């Protein structure tokens, strides 16, 4: 009798918890992956597979994801569109927002990917710097950006708004850490998951569309 009572109470509690978690998940939902059109894309516009990467320029794990992402891109060059979205983690990364602002302004002049590569290649240098602005300014020169336009861009509050918007969209999609990747909506977190599962997911997505 006592065992039965315990079983019933225990089961009741578990049912309440499961219902609660399911309801919260349902209410929270997830934002659509294609909500934020931006200037940080590469690959064919009408590619059947869309890969969105939420990244932080000062995060070492994001730097580690650059090479596998490039490998995947060359493997599926005709079928894959890559989109970069900012997800600056400001608490652990002091200069990430500044780096994101500079990269976003480079995007405004269609030079995002060159700037992106420079930031990741030299991540250790500017991350350790007490003032990375001169370093970023040298990347502006190196990528051949229009300095006047660039100066007014970095002061434009709309740039910060765009970065915050992408961050907020990522949060709504369940992004907690960087890099987080969505391949046609399927989520992968970290470069290990990208390397291990990315190509298989893309192949599967391509098969579905044939």
């Amino acid at each position, binding site marked *: 009798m006592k065992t039965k009572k315990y079983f019933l109470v*225990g089961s009741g509690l578990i049912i309440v918890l499961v219902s609660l*978690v399911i309801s*919260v998940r349902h209410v929270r939902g997830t934002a659509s992956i294609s909500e934020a059109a931006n200037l940080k894309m590469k690959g064919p516009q009408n590619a059947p597979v869309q890969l969105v990467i939420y990244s932080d320029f000062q995060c070492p794990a994001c730097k580690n994801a650059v090479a596998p992402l490039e490998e995947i891109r060359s493997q599926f060059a005709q079928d894959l569109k890559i989109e970069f979205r900012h997800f600056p983690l400001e608490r652990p990364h002091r200069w990430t927002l500044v780096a994101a602002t500079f990269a976003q302004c480079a995007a405004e002049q269609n030079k995002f990917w060159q700037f992106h590569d420079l930031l990741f290649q030299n991540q250790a240098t500017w991350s350790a710097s007490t003032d990375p602005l001169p370093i970023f300014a040298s990347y502006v020169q190196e990528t051949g950006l229009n300095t006047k336009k660039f100066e007014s861009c970095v002061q434009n509050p709309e740039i910060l708004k765009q970065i915050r918007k992408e961050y907020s969209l990522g949060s709504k999609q369940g992004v907690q850490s960087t890099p*987080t990747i969505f391949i046609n909506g399927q989520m992968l977190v970290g470069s290990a998951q990208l390397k291990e599962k990315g190509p298989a997911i893309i192949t599967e997505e391509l098969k579905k569309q044939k």
Partner: protein
Amino acid sequence: MTFLLLLIRLVLGGVFIYSGFSKLITPIENFMAVIEGYQFLKPPFIWPVAFFLPWLELIFGTFLLTGFLTRWSAAFLGLFSATFITLLSRSLILKLPVTECGCFGAGISLGPQQALMLDLGLFLMALCLIFFPCTPFGLDRKMSK
């Protein structure tokens, strides 16, 4: 003493409820990546652990909070805490690139050292409840009447 034990029960249960719940309401891939970071499980075992662990934290945390199967729930949560202590210590000794413990999803960010201290505290709390499970306002007490 009785009220101290009640407080311990509520705190321990509450921490595990929060920990389990915060992981369950976000995509499982986040917690899978956290587990990968500790480099102790082979890939086929990562998904089952990432799936079941938050549920167990939530269920036993709720059991403890409501004072249901108090001794057993405290024993399970104590076991979880001991496991986390081992993994965090291992990550610190091996200098693994774990910068954030991943204990509470995106809710609360703790470094490995801070998480280690927290888990030690939780482990001691669980031990108290294993030895003194009779706390007031619990289902166990009501059901034994």
